[in-house]
């Protein structure tokens, strides 16, 4: 069983490139060139250098002593929250901006939900002096004002997506439409392991630095490269893809993907795609997605703006279908209290996305000897408002 993308762009039965003919040349250009570019020594040199000097990598693999004591197991946190801009998202945008430059593109577009990917894209565009347009749902613009301000300060133009439900999926539609309208000079930086092939593979490769570092760091801490468990939250699934990547074929490493159950899986207000979704096509990829009987894509809900995407990346759909990864759903309430617990026990305020992954310790019993690595994908600064309102702080 392979968990990597095949030559046709599929993970098992999921993936592919279900795109209108208008996008064919753009996507084909990327497909023909991305691996070649990523293997060039000059690319690797610049990429590695920026990850080190600009992003601040490697991020620590931190042994969470008090959290470990509480849950009677050995818990390591991969500190992606310490990356520049506050989350793992920048690993991918650094990679893609360099690909865009190699392809001779002069303009970059991106979609964003909570604004983290938008900020990470605006950041690298500022760094490279490239024009940047970020599409964001009108509703998200209203509820994520600080990130909108950040993007503007970084010189990006933030365009409201006014169509459909005016959230992440519509921002993605608008970005795709922009790409149709500007096929020659523009590169579209997708922020997650979603979209048409080669995006899921390209983004996973850029995020794979996370598990590459975990292997090296765990060797130092535990004298072995492989933990017993890797835990990560999944919206589209980019941080999980990165944390799982180098463990996909190490079958003894248990992978746990954590989805947002919102107010409860069957409450009608949820984003637990693996449970509620059916096979379908969204944003150019065949995957599991939340939809009506009639095939209309439905709007998910989670307290975390980074997890309310109606699909999951095709890699994750494949991991779910083949049972390579265990999928666990966490409600708003469970995530929020796990987030607060990390503050109190370890002095770390996690992003609410990452707090979903932390809540697994209350759902699942680990052995005392188990080594558990949890990918702390982002920091909670952007979520302060939500924390304050939720806990009436």
């Amino acid at each position, binding site marked *: 069983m392979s968990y990597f993308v095949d030559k046709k762009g599929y993970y098992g039965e999921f993936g592919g490139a279900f795109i209108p003919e*208008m996008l064919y040349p753009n996507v084909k250009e990327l497909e023909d060139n991305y691996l070649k570019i990523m293997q060039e020594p000059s690319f690797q040199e610049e990429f590695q250098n920026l990850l080190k000097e600009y992003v601040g990598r490697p991020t620590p693999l931190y042994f969470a002593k008090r959290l470990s004591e509480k849950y009677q197991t050995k818990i390591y946190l991969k500190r992606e929250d310490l990356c520049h801009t506050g989350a793992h998202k920048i690993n991918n945008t650094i990679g893609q901006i360099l690909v865009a430059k190699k392809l001779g593109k002069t303009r970059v577009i991106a979609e964003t939900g909570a604004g983290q990917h938008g900020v990470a894209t605006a950041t690298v565009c500022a760094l490279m002096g490239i024009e940047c347009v970020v599409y964001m749902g009108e509703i998200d613009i209203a509820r994520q004002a600080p990130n909108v301000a950040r993007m503007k300060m970084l010189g990006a133009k933030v365009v409201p997506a006014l*169509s459909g439900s005016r959230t992440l999926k519509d921002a993605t539609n608008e970005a795709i439409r922009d790409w149709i*309208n500007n096929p020659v000079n523009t590169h579209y930086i997708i922020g997650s392991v979603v979209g048409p092939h080669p995006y899921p593979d390209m983004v996973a490769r850029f995020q794979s630095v996370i598990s590459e570092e975990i292997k090296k760091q765990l060797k130092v801490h535990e004298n072995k490269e492989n933990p017993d468990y890797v835990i990560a939250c999944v919206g589209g699934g980019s941080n999980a893809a990165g944390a799982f990547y180098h463990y996909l074929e190490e079958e003894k490493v248990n992978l746990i993907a954590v989805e947002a159950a919102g107010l409860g899986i069957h409450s009608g207000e949820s984003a637990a795609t693996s449970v509620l979704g*059916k096979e379908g096509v969204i944003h150019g990829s065949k995957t599991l997605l939340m939809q009506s009987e009639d095939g*209309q894509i439905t709007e998910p809900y989670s307290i975390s703006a980074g997890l309310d995407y109606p699909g999951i990346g095709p890699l994750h759909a494949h991991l779910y279908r083949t049972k390579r990864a265990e999928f666990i759903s966490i409600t708003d309430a469970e995530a929020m209290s796990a987030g607060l617990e990390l503050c109190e026990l370890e002095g770390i305020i996690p992003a609410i996305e990452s707090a979903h992954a932390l809540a697994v310790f209350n759902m699942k019993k680990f052995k005392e000897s188990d080594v558990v690595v949890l990918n702390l994908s982002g920091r909670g600064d952007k979520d302060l408002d939500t924390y304050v309102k939720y806990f009436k702080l």
Partner: protein
Amino acid sequence: MNRINQKLQENKKLLSIYFTAGFPKINDTVSIIESLEKSGVDFIEIGLPFSDPLADGPTIQASSTKALDNGMTTEVLFNQLKDIRKTVKIPLIIMGYFNPMMQFGIENFCKKCAEIGIDGLIIPDLPLDVYNNNYKTIFEKYGLINVFLITPQTSLERIQFIDKISDGFIYMVSSASVTGSQSAFGKTQDDYFKRIADLNLKSPQIVGFGISNAETFKQATKYAKGAIIGSAFVKYLDENGTASIQKFVNKIIN
């Protein structure tokens, strides 16, 4: 012979009109089709609404959202169309995105189309290779023509391949854009239209995207066999309702 191919043999420039099923009102479908035929339209694209229409601009997206709010579904549309061939003779094509068809079941969908008398399908996000490998035999079994698109960016090699596998016509997208975003055609489009005409493809070309009035229709059909109007008609329906469809069509072809 499929009604589309019969129509393509007529010695005239063809006008096709797109509308979104279920818009402006849920039960307008049949009366819109009948009025369009009566007004002299050559063939019709019936839009099956989708929540996330990637290749469409704001006009068609808004009409799709409204149609879905009105209660339009694949099942409802097929029910509305079940007796359409008792009154309508011109070719009918369903244009829609892949996901709703996939949920209905592709074989089931094609079978329904054949029973009703639908002649072809346009599915912008169904890639050529997936169609060839998985669905071609099903389409052929039910006598349905799958219409492929080309754009100004499509390579010569790919155009020739699309021409080879096309039965019926090639849908020629006028410019790098989503639907409904053009107001006039310039030299770039004219050069592109001529470049394609000079290839002497076996499949006639019908131009779509950006055609909104008599002038753009004339420009688009200078070399091509016909042209499709979508957003401009949907906008007209939104503003004027379904009573004066004849007036809209007259302005294009008279």
